[in-house]
Structure formats: C-alpha cells, structure tokens
C-alpha cells in the first residue's frame, strides 16, 4: 500500500472527523467489545490507518467505522483464544452500562455490532450494512434477533 503524505488538509480533515465522531465511535466499540482498552486501540488504529491513506479513501468516515469494527472484532477473537472473558464488567467506569454490556455478551458479533451501530451510533440499516460489509436485509435480521435476545437478557437480570 502506498502511504499518502499527511498534508495540512488531511490533518484538518481527520482532526475534524475525530472531534466530531471519535467519542461516538469509541463508545460504540465499547458496547461491541465490552473492553475500554480494545475500544481505544481499535479507534486509534482505524484513524491512524485512514490518515496514512489520506486522499486514497473516498469516504473516510465510513472507512474508519468499518476498519475500527474489523480491528476490534479481530482483537476480541484473539483475546478469546488466550483468556477467559468475564461475564460481568469489573471496571467501575462501566457501571452505567454494566447490565447492558453483560446482555450484549449473549449476542453474536454481527448482532452486537448491528444493534450497537443502530441504537447507539444512530446509523440506518443501509449504513450499517456498508460499515459491516453486509446487506440491509441481513442487518435487519440481526437487529430483530438482537432486540429479542437483549430484552430477554435484561428482563432476566431485572427479576
């Protein structure tokens, strides 16, 4: 891959993108992975790879979201091979969403990514399909199933 020079225009563009979307991306990755450190790593790495590509990317925002979820998915899978993931988040910072994170762990990666991108990031089915390299109808199925599973999981916890 040819690395593009970081011009002032590219720097301005990505600084703006990070300011506007960085927090939302990080929180979405947190919901997807349940792990703040993976969310940080995937978000930073996706932006860094996009910056290196500069003008070679037609839609930097979509590219960053797609890369970040792919990187996070890979890191999650790598961790699953080496450590036993705990059911409950233990980081006090995650207390506001501890029940949601525990429920999300019951979903498949596709379901978790789809419902997070829809309910937290506010993307449409079509946009989610583009980010995940999937199809609109498949995203609809994932979200439908994810809602049902989440509702059941959260009701179990509330009882």
């Amino acid at each position: 891959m040819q690395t593009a020079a970081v011009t002032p225009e590219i720097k301005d563009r990505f600084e703006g993108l990070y300011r506007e979307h960085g927090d939302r991306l990080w929180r979405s990755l947190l919901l997807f992975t349940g792990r703040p450190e993976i969310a940080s790593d995937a978000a930073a790495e996706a932006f860094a790879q996009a910056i290196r590509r500069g003008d070679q990317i037609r839609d930097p925002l979509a590219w960053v979201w797609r890369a970040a979820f792919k990187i996070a998915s890979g890191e999650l899978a790598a961790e699953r091979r080496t450590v036993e993931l705990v059911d409950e988040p233990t980081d006090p910072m995650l207390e506001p969403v501890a029940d949601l994170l525990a429920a999300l762990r019951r979903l498949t990666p596709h379901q978790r990514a789809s419902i997070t991108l829809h309910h937290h990031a506010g993307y449409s089915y079509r946009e989610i399909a583009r980010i995940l390299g999937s199809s609109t109808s498949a995203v609809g199925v994932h979200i439908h199933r994810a809602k049902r599973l989440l509702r059941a999981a959260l009701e179990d916890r509330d009882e």
Partner: protein
Amino acid sequence: MSDLHERFRRTDRISAPDLSEELWARASRPEDDTVVVLDRVRPRGRGPVALAAAFTLLAGLAVGAAMLGDADETVMATGDASWLTDGSSSTLSCVEEFTPENLARRSWAFDGTIIEVVPPVDLESPNPDEQVTLVTFRVTRWYTGGSDETVIVKTSNVPGGVTMNGDADPSIGARLLASGEAEYLWGCGFTMPYTEQDAAVFAAAFGG
C-alpha cells in the same frame, strides 16, 4: 423497546478517552505490511494501549475479517459449506434429478463465495421468512439470472457451525457453483463446491 434506547443512551455517561495524540503518533509510524488487516496493514509497533501478542492478533484478525466481512477484501477460500450442498436445500430441488439439461432450466446460476450466513430467526415462527437461512454470496460470475456483485439467497437448510459465542460460521469463504429458483437456492446437485470441471458444466448449460 424505549427501555432499550434508554439503556444504550446511558453509554453517553461514560467519558471517552482523548486518543488524538495516540492516533497521530501511530499514523506517523511506517507501516509494516506483513500483518494484513483491511487492504489492510497493521503496524507491528504498538502504542500504550497495545494488547495481544502478534501471533494471536493475526489469528484473531483473520477470524474477525471472516466474521464481519468486507466488500474490499478477499475472503478466505476454504470454507466448508457441506450443510448447504449436501442433500436438499429446498423440497423443490430434489423433485428434479441433476442433469445439465435440468440445470439449464434454472432461473439463476452463478459462481460465488459465501460472505455471510444468517441462520433462521425461529424455525417455529409463523412467518416463513424467519424459518429460512439467508446466505450472502459475492458473485464471481453470473451464468444467468442476475448481475449484482453480491446476492442473498434463501435456503431451508440450517448451518451447523454458527454458535452464540461468536465463532465464525465455517462455511464463510466457501466457493460454490449455485443455482436455484426465485429466492431459493437448490441443493440436490444443483449447488456444489466450485471446481473448474463443474464450472465448465455450468458454463455450457447456460451457453457460456
């Protein structure tokens, strides 16, 4: 469901870290293209939030790529789709014996690679659409009946490899010669693993 929205909104109470310095530091490092991710390079030098060892990362990224798919990438080409090609994928498909002549009567046929499998929502559902598996293919060549780069077809067969703990479906990456009617993929010989010899049969059946 409004409760679900509220639970997701609580995520905004968590402070996101400022990664601006980190991402620029990473962006300034030269890339090492031995570790392929997207189109797809990941630097070996890891920042302060570095995590897994390189070998586990490589394995994980490969699985992650398979799980999340990507229109720009080459998917793994070794998937096992025997759940789809063995036996019947539709009660209709076994009504006809596979012959090149019967193949030629199918309304669509292509050479494609599986990029996503969505198992049935509920086999007991009164909604027939929730009882089928959706299989998304990236099409290498249409023999007849379409022109799209990707296509979703339905099958009443159920994959055995998808699990709730997030493992990738083993049929992702399988290259098949597929054919069928309407939205349904046909089994019983009308869909088979790709070989050059069988691809020639498909091509000949559709005049190619």
